[in-house]
């Protein structure tokens, strides 16, 4: 995927760009707001990683507002040292799709950028999700694996739905907390792991191949093994 990184700090930018390239993405870089605005407005990207405080007279929020003002809906992840709740709200209001605060773990950034870029592809509203032999009907709320019906609690259903919508991508614990529970804090207890392990009991345990994989130091991924 083509990703634009607008970040003035050389070390952070280098670290992010290297990581994204290693993950197989094509990365462009702008180290000030004006170049960032020019690039983002003139070329097509699947996602933009945007710092808030930028040199060049155009700060991150101005860039984002200008972009949205031109009906450019490229997914934008704001990456900022401004960590207060109000800063986050302001960033999302300006048109940001996700907000991460520095310092950050690269695995989290990668997972979120990939999720955003994928969402930007904009498939229509699906009524059915599928991964390997796992099928989910969003209307009748029925889940089947290899033709066999699986009974899920409402919360387990939403957790599996989130994993299936992001099939093939890394999903971090924070993303699950935000996406499935709508919580914006980090519990000190391993609550998410417990819920995922319960889901595994129902979805993976009775079958020969597992679908839900643990990604070390990052989170989880639902992936159908290619035979």
């Amino acid at each position, binding site marked *: 995927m083509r990703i634009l990184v607008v970040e003035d700090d050389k070390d952070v930018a280098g670290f992010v760009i290297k990581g994204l390239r290693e993950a197989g993405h094509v990365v462009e870089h702008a180290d000030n707001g004006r170049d960032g605005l020019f690039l983002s407005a003139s070329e097509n990207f699947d996602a933009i990683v945007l710092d808030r405080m930028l040199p060049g007279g155009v700060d991150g929020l101005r860039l984002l507002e200008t972009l949205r003002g031109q009906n450019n809906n490229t997914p934008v992840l704001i990456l900022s040292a401004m960590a*207060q*709740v109000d800063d986050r709200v302001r960033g999302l209001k300006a048109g940001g799709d996700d907000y991460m605060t520095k310092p950050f773990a690269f695995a989290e950034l990668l997972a979120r950028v990939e999720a955003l870029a994928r969402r930007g592809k904009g498939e229509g509203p699906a009524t059915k999700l599928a991964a390997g032999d796992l099928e989910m009907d969003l209307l009748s709320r029925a889940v089947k694996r290899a033709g066999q019906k699986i009974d899920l609690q409402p919360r387990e259903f939403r957790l599996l739905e989130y994993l299936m919508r992001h099939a093939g991508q890394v999903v971090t614990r924070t993303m699950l907390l935000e996406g499935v529970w709508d919580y*914006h804090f*980090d*519990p000190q207890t391993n*609550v998410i792991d417990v819920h995922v392990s319960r889901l595994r009991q129902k979805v993976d345990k009775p079958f020969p191949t597992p679908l839900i994989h643990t990604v070390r*130091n990052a989170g989880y991924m639902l992936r159908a093994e290619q035979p």
Partner: protein
Amino acid sequence: MAALSRRRPLIGSAGVRFGLIYAFTFALSTIILAVFLWWSTAGLLDRQTDAAITVDAQGLLERYVDGGLPPLEDTIEQRMAGNIDDDAIYLLADPFYRKMVGNLERWPPSVLPDTDWTQIRIERAGRRGMAQIRQFDLLGGYHLLIGRDVEAHAQMARLLTDALLWAVGVALLLGSLGALAVRGLFRFTLADVSATAAAISAGDLSRRVRVSGRGDEFDRLAETINDMLDRIGRLMDGVRQVSNAIAHDLRTPIARARARLEDAAEHARGEVDLRAAIVRAEADLDGVIAIFQALLRIAEIEAGARRSAFAPFDLAPLLLDLADLYAAAAEERGQRLAPEIPPSLPAFGDRDMVQQAVANLLDNALKFSPPGSAIRLGASGEAGQPARITVADEGPGIPEPDRLRAAERFFRGESARSTPGSGLGLALVQAVATLHGGSLRLEDNRPGLRATLTIGTRQPPLPGGRVNATSSADQSHAAIGAA
């Protein structure tokens, strides 16, 4: 104060201004009183004289109209004879102002032809005096003067005027003295406030404004100022304490990470060793970041900046969701999480903050409870009362002396030191409670700890929450909220 009046013109001093206002008000009311007195005494006599003259004139003029000159002359003679007080003045004159009848020697030169009322000096039977006179021109060219001797009135008016002028003078003097007194009192009362403020800006935070004990407005001002100073003092203490704690609690993991990296750089025997050391150092640094984020979040909440997101919401589904999130983790640890939540529980505040506060309490309960024990998440509320959220566990609890300090930043009980956590969890809960006009109460659950968080149901007036610890420790409780 002294410095102030030296630098500014006199009128710039509030004390002088208040004194002047006092003096002006006092003088003005004295003058109004004097004018009223004059009007109601001397003025009254004058008006009575004028009325008598008018009545007298009416009678005489009627006579003249009815009968002509002779009956008028007769009547004047009669009236002069019948005037016991000898204060009435009559003079009838011919068209050439020659006296025909009356008790004046001749037509007074000061009475000019076209005037109606006049006051003239007269000399009558050897006595000089003042007279109030009215002049009438009769048909046929005759002239009539009717008047009253008002010498006595004039004397009284002079006396009265003198007395009133003196009174105004005395009033001005008293007013000025009063003004000085007001200014002095003002300075005296404010001197202490300004001295205290000066001492505090010079760095002596222990100074307080003196309270006289009379319970007046100045006392209330002094109490408000003292309350403010107490709060500032507490905040300063808090800052000092926190900076010490930060210095200590953050230095440790940073030192550990540094040591690991240095050790790896020196002694690592291959890439595997190196990687392992780096990953562990990364984890240490993540811990530091988590502490920073928790501290900033608490500071953000305490600053009260997030009140803008306050709105009414229902606590019941929020608590049920949290119970659902934590029940699985509790079960994993062999604990039971039992929610006892009413169908609906209105509250007013910031949903996200309350969620995080309750999550912190649940984190603590799970972390410190032994397997096989029960954790209760309860909630209750009555109309008009703050909503109560209770998290009760059967863990080791917190020993009574530590309970008051448990919600302080970085405070960790003896036995909590062995468990992971930063000692900021309860501090955050406390900050959320205070911001919501509620409180955090830590009590003995016999065994275990019962934490009660109250959340206001309407817009809180001012942060007023405090930690209350109730006594009754029958068991050694030793786990402190970390998280």
